[in-house]
């Protein structure tokens, strides 16, 4: 199955992904390190997509060489303080029969 792809095939996918996403790794060994992360992410994607009951698809994209922690640190950033929701308004409160 897809999830038993051999190393060479995954390597080829990785090289193609690097070109498509304009990646260039400078540090020594950085490319190999990123390849390991890429493989883990690809495995997770294929496991999810092999579920016949899935409601959505996962796929390779600009984030596919990031660990979950790196992704969280760089691309989220929403902060919620309890105080900010103090002014709840009635304007849009739903009442039964609202048109």
């Amino acid at each position, binding site marked *: 199955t897809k999830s038993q792809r051999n190393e060479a095939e995954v390597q080829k996918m990785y090289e193609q992904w690097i070109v498509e996403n304009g990646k260039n790794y400078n540090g020594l060994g950085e490319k190999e390190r990123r390849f390991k992360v890429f493989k883990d*992410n690809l495995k*997770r*994607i294929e496991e999810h997509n092999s579920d016949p009951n*899935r*409601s*959505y*698809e*996962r*796929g*390779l*994209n*600009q*984030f*596919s060489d*990031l660990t*979950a922690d790196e*992704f*969280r*640190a*760089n*691309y*989220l*950033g*929403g*902060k*919620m*303080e309890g105080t*900010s*929701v*103090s*002014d*709840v*308004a*009635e*304007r*849009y*409160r*739903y009442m039964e029969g*609202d*048109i």
Partner: protein
Amino acid sequence: LPDEVDWREGGAVVPRVKKQGDCGSCWAFAATAAVEGINQITTGELISLSEQELIDCDRGNGNFGCVGGGAVWAFEFIVRNGGIVTDEVYPYVGNTSAACKAIEMPTTRFVTIDGHEVVPEKDEMSLMKAVAHQPVSVMISAANMSDYTSGVYKGPCSNLWGDHNVLIVGYGTSSEEGDYWLIRNSWGPEWGEGGYLRLQRNFHESTGKCAVAVAPVYPIKSSSSSNLLSPSVFKLLLLFVFKLVSLTLL
């Protein structure tokens, strides 16, 4: 309430899906998109606004540039600041190296709002009613969504309170996957469904799926609040009109 809403068709959403890059500025994109929406709905003009002005200038009141923040505080800044300029005048650079640029307001187009309000929390029907009136900023827990490409997302969710600020621009129902929220993200058009996410709606938990109903917030703007001319240009115009009148009277 309408079965389906899509503010992109309503012309209240900037067609270009913006990209925050590796900077935790999702809050600024959610804020500008919400203000772009309400401004178009009240004035008919769709004007793309500046996230970088929020990143550089709205500091310390809950928002911290690329480190993170919330649209709710950005709305408060925009009111205090007397408006927000376009991203043409103050383009996005995706970092916090620059100080706040003093924008020459007299000659710059900018958009104003009158304030913000919060939708009744943990109430997806009220959220639906709000979205039927305007795009709404929400926090969702998105740490597990990095490789979402299409479909109606039903989990897993990374926490119960949300860690990523996005904008709900509509809702609908998929024949296979059920009810969903239509969400505009700021990870560029290559992510998800052309930059958008469909998130499960009418979840059995009151928080909504991935915390979507925990703290929805929207800007308010009365159609009377003008925002295309800055006060000083307005005065100049008034002066000019008086000059004209006095010349004709002489």
